[in-house]
């Protein structure tokens, strides 16, 4: 079975390709990148004239909510949201119920993905049992069952001692440790960024220094243990600077940024908009600029969504009571294209690299992820860079609607994806 995507422009940073070319897929694998107009008579022909063909996007930071919170999202709806956003591969965080802290839960997620998933899913294992920040999980078993990294995202490790031991174990097993960086003693009951907007609204604040301190500590522990530390959802200028210095020093540390942390500031919380409440919170323009600078100079390695669905009724409450988290998968590429590529912060190729080959490298995803190299699994996203449209929370594939980008005009969107050779149109 052959499929030919013809008439498009292929952008594949892993091979330094950016030119008009046709893509031939055969039996679920990339077969060849062909000169435009090459006739392949026995292939299904898909016209992608005027479109951009890239490796399927990869998001290493999503919350699929299954098992336990299927009313927010499940593996089926979450991977549909992924595919609608151009993502063919996602890594899901362990804060499910039960948490992904045993091999059985890892296997459950992989089995469910086999049954209902429309994109590849890689589970991330918890660092501590039930994410209680206490006893380490059986990481070797998690890894052999299919977990590709370790994290206590959403329940950041407070004890430096536990963090150190988790890092030693991760280093031994060659697994990256992904840290949500927050000194909880400084954030306490905070519900948004500490600063002028929080002062206006009378909302308890979460100071930026709470992230910076945790980052500095975790970097020092990574240096001590030799563990590959990956900094989740960088939100402050301080973190960008600490990461830049750590990299210069040769410490094994990488970092990621979410669309909302460079495209929005804490002013999005005005009128007590709970769809602008997430953790780490929206910060200030200065932080947005520092994150963009970090993406541009390579300090920040990749772009993720921290896709965190919550039911509408859970967000339709007092600001204090609303859960942290927003959707991301279906707005990530359009926001990235509009706010980073159109504005000249990144070239299209650089942006695609941070959504394909770079995240694949960070988590050592299976061979063939994030590339259109012949022989690689045929995961492809076809993007339209021209359409200007308005994000509408009521038309998403996700089960939830919690996006602060509702009503935002953006340019560019995913048209369809190909997952292991199968064309997914939503």
């Amino acid at each position, binding site marked *: 079975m052959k499929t030919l995507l013809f008439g498009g422009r292929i952008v594949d940073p892993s091979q330094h390709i950016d030119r008009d070319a046709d893509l031939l897929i055969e039996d679920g694998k990339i077969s060849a990148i062909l000169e435009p107009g090459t006739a392949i008579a026995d292939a299904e022909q898909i016209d992608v004239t005027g479109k951009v063909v890239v490796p399927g996007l990869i998001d290493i930071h999503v919350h699929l909510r299954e098992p336990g919170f299927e009313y927010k999202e499940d593996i089926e709806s979450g991977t549909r949201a992924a595919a609608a956003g151009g993502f063919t591969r996602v890594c899901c965080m362990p804060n499910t119920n039960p948490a992904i802290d045993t091999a059985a839960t890892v296997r459950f997620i992989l089995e469910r993905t086999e049954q209902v998933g429309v994109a590849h899913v890689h589970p991330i294992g918890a660092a501590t049992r039930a994410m209680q920040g206490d006893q380490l999980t059986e990481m070797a078993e998690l890894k052999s069952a299919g977990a590709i990294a370790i994290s206590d995202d959403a329940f950041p490790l407070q004890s430096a001692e536990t963090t150190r031991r988790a890092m030693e174990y991760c280093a031994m097993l060659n697994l990256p440790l992904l840290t949500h960086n927050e000194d909880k003693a400084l954030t306490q009951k905070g519900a948004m960024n500490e600063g002028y907007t929080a002062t*206006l609204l009378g909302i308890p604040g979460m*100071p930026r220094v709470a992230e910076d301190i945790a980052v500095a500590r975790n970097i020092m522990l990574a240096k001590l243990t030799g563990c590959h530390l990956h900094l989740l959802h960088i939100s402050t200028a301080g973190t960008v600077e600490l990461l830049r210095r750590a990299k210069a020093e040769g410490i094994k540390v990488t970092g990621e940024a979410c669309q909302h942390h460079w495209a929005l500031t804490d002013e999005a919380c005005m009128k007590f908009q709970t769809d602008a409440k997430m953790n780490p919170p929206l910060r200030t323009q200065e932080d947005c600029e520092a994150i963009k600078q970090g993406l541009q100079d390579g300090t920040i390695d990749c772009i993720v969504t921290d896709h965190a669905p919550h039911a509408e009724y859970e967000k339709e409450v007092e600001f204090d009571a609303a859960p942290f988290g927003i959707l991301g998968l279906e707005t990530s590429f359009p926001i990235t294209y509009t706010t980073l590529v159109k504005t000249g912060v990144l070239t299209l190729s650089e942006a695609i690299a941070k959504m394909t080959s770079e995240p694949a490298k960070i988590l050592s995803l299976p061979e063939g992820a994030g590339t259109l190299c012949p022989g690689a699994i045929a995961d492809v996203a076809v993007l339209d860079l021209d359409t200007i449209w308005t994000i509408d929370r009521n038309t998403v594939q996700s089960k939830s609607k919690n996006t602060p980008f509702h009503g935002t005009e953006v340019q560019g969107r995913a048209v369809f994806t190909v997952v292991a050779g199968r064309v997914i149109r939503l």
Partner: protein
Amino acid sequence: MKHLLTLRETSKTDIDYLLDTAGTLREILERPVKKVPTLRGRAMITLFYENSTRTRTSFEMAAKIMSAEAINIAVSQSSVSKGESLKDSLLTLQALKADCIVMRHSSSGTPEFAAQILKHTSIINAGDGRHEHPTQGLLDMLTIRQTKGQLEDLEVAIVGDIAHSRVARSNIWGLTKMGAKVRLVGPRTLLPPDADRLPVQVYDNLAQGLDGVDVVNVLRLQTERMEKGLLPSLREYSRLFGISQQSLKLAQPDVMVLHPGPMNRGVEISADVADGKFGIHSAIEEQVTNGIAVRMAVLYALMGVSSDTEA
């Protein structure tokens, strides 16, 4: 006006109107028969998720003087204990045909949330978290204006726990809109982040903060602030920031002292000052009476217009 949620978002024109109306309505409170028929057939529901005697009673008094129905719902009687969401509670009160809901809640922004949900019922913010307490701001302004004749160019010091105070925020916006100059005075642990970006002068030294002021608005010090490590002791707080006859010597000779109550005598305010000894103008009881007048004005502004003529 449809709602009264904040003074930050209320125009100077509306504030002027409310203060003028309150000034007029206040006369009713001095009559032997304190009753006018203005709001007959209108229903006000007070929905208080935090304990309050003073503010709730003041609203109830205001409604009854204006002949409106006043129904009080306290949190213990409400559906909260049954797990009902705030949204559902609000929709129920609207369906019960409340013309206005007076809300107090420990979470900032709940009146705004209510106003976004309810299409037919007016919302009055009676204090939300550390956000705003607009009728307190209005009654403070009315009290100052009665004595000083105007608000413009007055120097007003707000002293105490600014960070956690909804009274402070409503005072800041209301007073500055009316042309007064506002100072915030308190220990750094109780000043809000980026306070210097507010239209105020910020002081962490009482002597400097009180120098030459016309009005001192003393905030209540919640004793749990000390337990949370924001203050070393009430004794030291009182020594550094307590308002006493001594500390007021730096202010204008005709300085007036306000306190939103309830007071901690001997902590943020000395008993002598509270009781107006040594010729000090303590306006604390005037504030309470003016509170009724202000709330009458607000109820009138929100419910007084015939529904036929509403847009």
